[in-house]
């Protein structure tokens, strides 16, 4: 325990930036300069705490006791550092990308966009460094509020509907978290995070303790997109791609997962979880979600929606890892937080780059696009491979630990099987994209339907861009119907009225832009390649990349973990 200004400084640095960004409305270059400076500063502050935390120091800053039970305090422990470091690192990457993306599309309200982004990051780091459940809740709610303008950024009917849904779901979850927090406070007399769990909860009335756990898991589960509370996430893909990337693959959804991690590790603790018998239901829900979401992902033709369902699936890997309560499973689950973040960010950035350059959103229009955007698609291939758990990419390491952990559990075979099946499904929904990008051409792809064959197993999905709703509503996910024409609503339509064919290759097929970066601006390519590289690094040298070391510290510090 060391009193230090650094936790609060990490949060404040981007909070202070908000008014500055707002006041620089007419000077976009300075404004973006501020964003980048702050992003670097934030990362530097957080990174400076890594050595200390790894050697057992815990940086603390308390704002004080505001009321009975309302104590606002921040501290940097290994778990918080994992999330904080990740979020601040990726903010840098995303900031560069945002500049390229927003300017590339000549978006409106960019000032509001960058200000909200800074606010979101402040809240996300607040979530990471919160040292008790209540502070976590406060930052969690602020995160909802500050990301709402980003989701609704387009100001179209679809965007507003998505925003409304987002608010309703996440505030609903917030209420559940609040209820759970109150219960925990009443039962245990405190909400301060304690590795291994609060003592008061172990001895409390088990029914109430279970109810509190259910509320907390359900509340954080909304942002972690556990089924059946996931349907806001695909709809929120209407947001600009950098938002989808950072917030909906990293900060927002990860704050939900992070919340569950805090509840499992530091509020209840493995031992109490075991006693209360709440771990298995959570694991079951996670396993169900990861399989179902993978299957649904197969059926999405809009690239961002497919990525969204992939996210839902991958988040459940983490939750599953946490719920299994085994040392290896925990390591795998926690490591999957950064691993998934790097990979998914790469994928989203690629989707965004394709969108900006070619206005193509549908997978069925992407045949042969590897010629037009070779580097982008290469990065995409690397990240997709990682998602599927191919060695040398980040996803492999985390999934390896997860499967080992599942197998070490009595009756854990079924979870291991679910993980492996899902891995296969991952290949099934990513591989065709990569394959057709490089090995097919726009002219030829109609003859070979996108998901033909044993892996996808669905021949009714046509590749002409008009699939899904006409032909495939038999087992479509129920929320699909609420947002008609989702594949075309991505905020493009509003700004490019002349853009009638909704993407796809130009009349003469894709140009050949070569491998020297002629495909896009370096503002976008740079972040894409950086993120891809990071996922490779984490897959090849996980310890050097720090994250696995942090995870190891977390797990080894945790009492009551079953090896």
């Amino acid at each position, binding site marked *: 325990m060391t009193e230090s200004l650094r936790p609060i400084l990490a949060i404040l640095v981007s909070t202070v930036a908000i008014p500055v960004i707002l006041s620089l409305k007419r000077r976009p270059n300075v404004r973006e300069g501020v964003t980048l400076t702050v992003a670097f500063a934030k990362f530097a502050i957080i990174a400076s705490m890594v050595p200390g935390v790894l050697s057992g120091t815990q940086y603390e800053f308390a704002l004080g*006791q*505001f*009321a*009975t*039970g*309302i104590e*606002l305090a921040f501290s940097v422990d290994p778990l918080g550092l994992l999330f904080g470091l990740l979020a601040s690192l990726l903010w840098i990457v995303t900031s560069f990308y945002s500049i390229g993306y927003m300017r590339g599309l000549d978006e409106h309200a960019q000032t509001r966009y960058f200000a909200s982004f800074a606010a979101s990051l402040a809240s996300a780091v607040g979530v990471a460094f919160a040292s008790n459940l209540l502070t976590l*809740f*406060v930052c969690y*709610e*602020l995160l*909802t*509020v500050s990301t709402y*303008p980003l989701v*609704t950024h387009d*100001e179209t009917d679809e*965007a*507003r509907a998505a*925003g*409304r849904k987002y*608010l*309703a779901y996440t*505030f*609903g979850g*917030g*209420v*559940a978290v*609040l*209820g759970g927090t*109150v*219960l925990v*406070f*009443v039962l245990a007399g405190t909400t301060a995070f304690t590795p291994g769990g609060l003592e008061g909860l172990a001895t409390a009335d088990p029914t109430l303790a279970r109810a509190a756990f259910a509320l907390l898991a359900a509340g954080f589960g909304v942002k972690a997109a556990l089924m059946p509370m996931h349907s806001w996430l695909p709809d929120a893909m209407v947001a600009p791609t950098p938002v989808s990337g950072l917030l909906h693959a990293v900060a927002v959804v990860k704050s939900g997962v992070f919340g569950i991690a805090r509840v499992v590790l530091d509020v209840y603790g493995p031992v109490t979880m075991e006693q209360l018998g709440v771990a298995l239901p959570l694991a079951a829900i996670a396993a169900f979600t990861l399989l179902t979401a993978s299957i649904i992902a197969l059926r999405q033709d809009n690239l961002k929606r497919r990525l969204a369902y992939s996210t839902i699936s991958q988040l459940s890997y983490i939750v599953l890892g946490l719920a299994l309560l085994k040392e290896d499973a925990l390591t795998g689950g926690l490591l999957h937080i950064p691993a998934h973040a790097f990979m998914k960010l790469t994928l989203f950035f690629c989707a965004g780059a394709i969108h900006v350059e070619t206005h193509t959103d549908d997978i069925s229009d992407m045949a042969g696009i590897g010629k037009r955007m070779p580097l982008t698609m290469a990065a995409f291939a690397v990240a997709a491979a990682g998602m599927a758990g191919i060695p040398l990419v980040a996803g492999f390491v985390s999934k390896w630990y997860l499967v080992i952990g599942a197998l070490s559990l009595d009756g854990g075979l079924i979870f291991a099987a679910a993980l492996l099946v899902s891995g296969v499904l991952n290949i099934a929904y990513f591989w065709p994209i990569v394959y057709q990008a490089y090995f097919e051409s726009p002219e030829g792809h109609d003859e070979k339907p996108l998901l033909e064959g044993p892996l996808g197993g669905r021949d009714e999905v046509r590749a002409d861009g008009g699939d899904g709703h006409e032909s495939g509503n038999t087992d479509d996910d129920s929320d699909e119907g609420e947002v008609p024409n989702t594949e075309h609503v991505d905020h493009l339509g509003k700004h490019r009225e002349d853009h009638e064919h909704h993407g796809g290759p130009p009349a003469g097929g894709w140009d050949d832009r070569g491998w020297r970066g002629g495909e896009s601006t370096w503002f976008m390519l740079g972040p894409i390649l950086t993120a891809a590289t990071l996922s490779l690094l984490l897959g090849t040298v996980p310890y050097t990349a720090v994250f696995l070391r942090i995870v190891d510290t977390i797990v080894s510090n945790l009492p009551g973990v079953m090896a």
Partner: protein
Amino acid sequence: MIEQLPVLLVVLPIIGGAIPLAASLVSDRAGWPVATLTLIGQAVLAGLLAWTVSTSGTVSYAVGGFAAPYGIELVVDGLSGAVALLVAVVSLGVLAYARQAGPHSGPFYGLYLLLVAGLTGMTVTGDVFNLYVFLEITGLAAYGLVASGRDASAAVAALKYLIIGTVGASLYLLGIGYLLAATGTLNMADLATKLGEMAAYDSTLVLTAFGLMVGGLTVKVALFPLHTWQPDAYANAPDTVSAFISALVSTVSAYALARLLFSVFTVEFLTAVPVARWALVGLACVSIIAGSALAVSQDSVQRMLAYSSVSQFGLVVAGFAIATPLAVVGATVHLLGHAVMKGGLFAATGVIERETGATTVNGYAGMGSRVPLPAFSFAVLSLAMVGVPPAVGFVGKWYIVLGAVNAENWPVVAVLLASTLLTLAYFARLVERLYFAEATIHSEPDEVPVTDGSGQAVSFGMIAVVVIAAALAVALTAAVPELQAMLEDTLPPLLNQ
């Protein structure tokens, strides 16, 4: 001089209120300066009083030197000290708004100060009948102020308010009659002891008195289904008056209800007669839900805000009725916080209407860019009202929920938690329209039909009031520990049970 503060706090605005009428013979712009001077003095006195209470405990004062229960006693503890300070500060703030927004007549400011006197009197008194007298001063002044606008509908709303309000106050008076029949005394502290001894808690007289007095006050608080006067009154009054009465009148009535519960009937009564407590909690819960449902279905922003008050006061009354120490602190925090937030919201609607002519939910579309500062304040206040931490709206709710959980009252916990979502339901659509919708009103305000008539210009003071309210909605959180300490020190029979 410190010990004279309770009475000075009431007499000062009375004196101030008597002056504008005479002064209007000399100058027709004398009202505002007189009111400002008086209320600055009032705020200083109230601040001093609150400080005294927080440092040296409850202040009690025997008017005329006649000891209670024979004379009238004024009692200022943490609860009343906080409310008195709120009254002084909010009324001073609204005055800054009124300078430009009007009305400007001398009698208006006279009445304004008399309303402050009435509210302060209700706050500091320790005598149930004295409370009735100040309740009626408050009522008379409020009816007059509602009708001070140029709109013809304001008079209809005021008459409706007058009739329903009078029935409420009369029921309260009849309740005093039953209490008097049971005990022969009117002093609150004396009643609290005699109610246990002379008349059993569950005797018909006491129960009837409880029903009538609480029923009468809930009319003034505007709990569902006795709220019908309130939306008309808030929506048709001039902006200044809407901001003022929405912030204070129901608030002080709810305070009076709390005073009645804790200082007259006491928590022992609520424990001895559980049905009384559950009736009140049930009424509050119904009010939370019905008020929100009605708010969602409104098209006019001001009416929506008015129904929102119905719902929020449900929350406050629920907290008081649960009556665990934490719930009471929570209800008090929410009572004070709601006053700031709701007053600020009404002031913001006034500013937005003057600048753009927008009054309806759809009319607010796209106003985020046309009136950035008021719209932003409106959004902040809305979120604070929803209970987004760390705004004060959250802290109150937190305490009330804690109290309900401590009382193991699960249905109420569920309603309280759901109230967040219910509140979100009506505020989110407004905030969404403010920022993320195409403007539906493009005309300049001049082309919009003038409804208030006292000029359309927006002054610096008006915007400042709105912005300060928004800032306070967040900053007040920092004052909560102080308030909690003050309440715990001065409401001992209740909070240290």
